[in-house]
């Protein structure tokens, strides 16, 4: 039971990061109706930017974080402007965008391989990582104590590392910020309108190109934040984006492509599934269960939990 709860806690933490990345991806999908495979690239840019700023420039985590967000956001905007816009303006078939996005992803990844090198780098220790005991039991006593202060003489049952707690917290903050942005601001409204029908939003006077740039910036920013946490957890290397984004895509599919709440729930579910599998079955099966969940979703309910039915107008 303790292992179960422990893995649930771990799963929530991992899942929250997936959620952050999946949300950015779903946001772009909801507007442009294509899967931006370069999303992982934005993540990696954020990670390396943070690394560079923390190491070489000795900034603190807040500045480095802001810098990473800016860097990834700008890369996202540039990618859209240079690679996607020309294609979008030419054709509405998404196949070309998919292929181009894959190309961008590979270019970003390999630019880092070729310039900085592919070895694993650890981010400086900016996040506290001591374990925080959530629940413990005194020797001999049956009752549990929650959030005990000092863990003297107690058997810890449920812990969460401070890092996990922080990443969970930060994710929640950013998701709330996103929610506020979408619900309470004019651009948020424009984005929601565009998610229903991009062309109509344009006809209603929304500056579509500017809107898309904003959406990409937001997606890049979210990816960067996720990237910083993932880089801290797994160390930083150019291919970090690949596996993580595959999982984020799966999370978005499970939640329903194009649905933001779906992406969050999908991400959390995926994190939970992975951690529970790692805890109870085996660590290697972790990645396998991701794929299995994907196939299961596609068979049972392909539009995912909250998916929209995107039908051609005939």
């Amino acid at each position, binding site marked *: 039971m303790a292992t179960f709860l422990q893995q649930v806690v771990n799963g929530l933490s991992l899942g929250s990061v997936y959620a952050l990345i999946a949300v950015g991806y779903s946001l772009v*999908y909801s507007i442009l109706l*294509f*899967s931006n*495979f370069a999303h992982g690239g934005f993540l990696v840019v954020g990670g390396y930017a943070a690394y560079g700023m923390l190491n070489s420039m000795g900034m603190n985590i807040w500045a480095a974080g802001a810098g990473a967000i800016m860097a990834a956001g700008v890369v996202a905007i540039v990618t859209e402007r*240079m*690679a996607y816009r*020309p*294609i979008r303006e*030419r*054709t509405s*078939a*998404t*196949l*070309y*965008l*998919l*292929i*181009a996005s*894959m*190309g*961008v*992803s*590979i*270019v970003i*990844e*390999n*630019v880092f*391989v*070729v310039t900085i090198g592919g070895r694993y780098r650890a981010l400086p220790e900016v996040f506290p990582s001591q374990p925080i005991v959530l629940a413990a039991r005194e020797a001999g006593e049956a009752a549990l104590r929650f959030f005990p202060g000092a863990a003297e003489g107690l058997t810890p049952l449920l812990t969460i590392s401070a890092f996990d707690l922080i990443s969970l917290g930060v994710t929640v903050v950013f998701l709330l910020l996103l929610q506020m942005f979408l619900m309470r601001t004019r651009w948020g409204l424009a984005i929601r309108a565009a998610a229903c029908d991009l062309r109509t939003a344009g006809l209603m006077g929304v500056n579509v190109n500017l809107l898309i740039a904003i959406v990409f910036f937001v997606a890049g920013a979210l990816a960067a934040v996720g990237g910083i946490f993932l880089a801290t957890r797994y160390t930083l290397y150019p291919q970090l984006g*690949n*596996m993580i984004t*595959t999982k984020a*895509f*799966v999370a978005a*599919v499970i939640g329903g*492509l194009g649905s933001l709440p779906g992406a969050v729930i999908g991400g959390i579910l995926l994190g939970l599934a992975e951690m529970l599998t790692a805890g109870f079955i085996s660590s*290697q099966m972790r*990645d*396998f269960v*991701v*794929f299995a969940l*994907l*196939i299961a979703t*596609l*068979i049972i309910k*392909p539009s995912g939990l909250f998916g929209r039915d*995107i039908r*051609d107008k*005939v």
Partner: protein
Amino acid sequence: MKKSLLGALFLAALGAALAYVPMDYYTEGILMLLCINMIAAMGVSLLTGFTGIFTLGHAAYMAMGAYTAAILIMNYDVPWLPSVLAGGVLAAALAWVVGVPTMKLTGDYYAIASLGLCEAIRLVIENWQSVTRGARGIPGIDPYTTRAVAVWFFVILALFMFNLIYSRWGRYFRACRDDVTAASLLGFNTPSIRLVSLLISAFYCGIAGALLGGYLSFIQPAMFDMMKSTELTSLVVFGGLGSMSGTLLATGIITLITELFRPISQYRMLIYGAVLVMVMVLRPDGLLGSREIWEFRRRRAGAGKEESR
């Protein structure tokens, strides 16, 4: 219609020449690699160029073919030919598992699933050590892929592929690519057609993988990773989505360049990625667009001979 016969004879003559003309070891090696890559590329071309379904993980089918053949030959003493064919069939079976749920959805879903598949296959191979010997791979495979084998497999599979796209199936695939709604409102069972395309493309990649194992005498999971998948897709995009001869041309060019420019191999992936983006942005038609090499006379506006694919 005589074109079919002409085409078949041409391929047969080409095959005979390439298979038996004496050549040096180095050229022979490149030729065999070329044949193998071309077989895989034809498979991807059918799915992406002709049926409009983007795939990111086709190397998984090559892995399936390679490992099936190797395991049958080495552990069960099956002769190489049935093993290679079994490799193709099992690759198609794998594709069926992924394809049934995804072929009725839009292309994004298969693309994501194919990414996952590639990873999943790699995991299975690396962890099922008793059968696959894990990440170290399987060495010492009997080199059954001789020059004649590679060339004849290519010739026959190319003949089948060209015939296929010049048949009613070619029209079905292209209809699904160009407007899947219109296709289903012509009475086509579009998920079924797309699945057929996927199965055939997986079969081709499975064969290519099995032949690769027989050529290198060695296989390991790293040979069938994202780089390989991306390479295949890049070849098809570069050659032109919807042109089989374009795919072959592009494969020839890129394989030769890769071989000749070994020193820059660390930039290979970067170049593939850049090729993908630049072709899509600047010249989405790639080399030949959606026409075959021998079709460049048509498409003039106005009157012309009745021509059909």
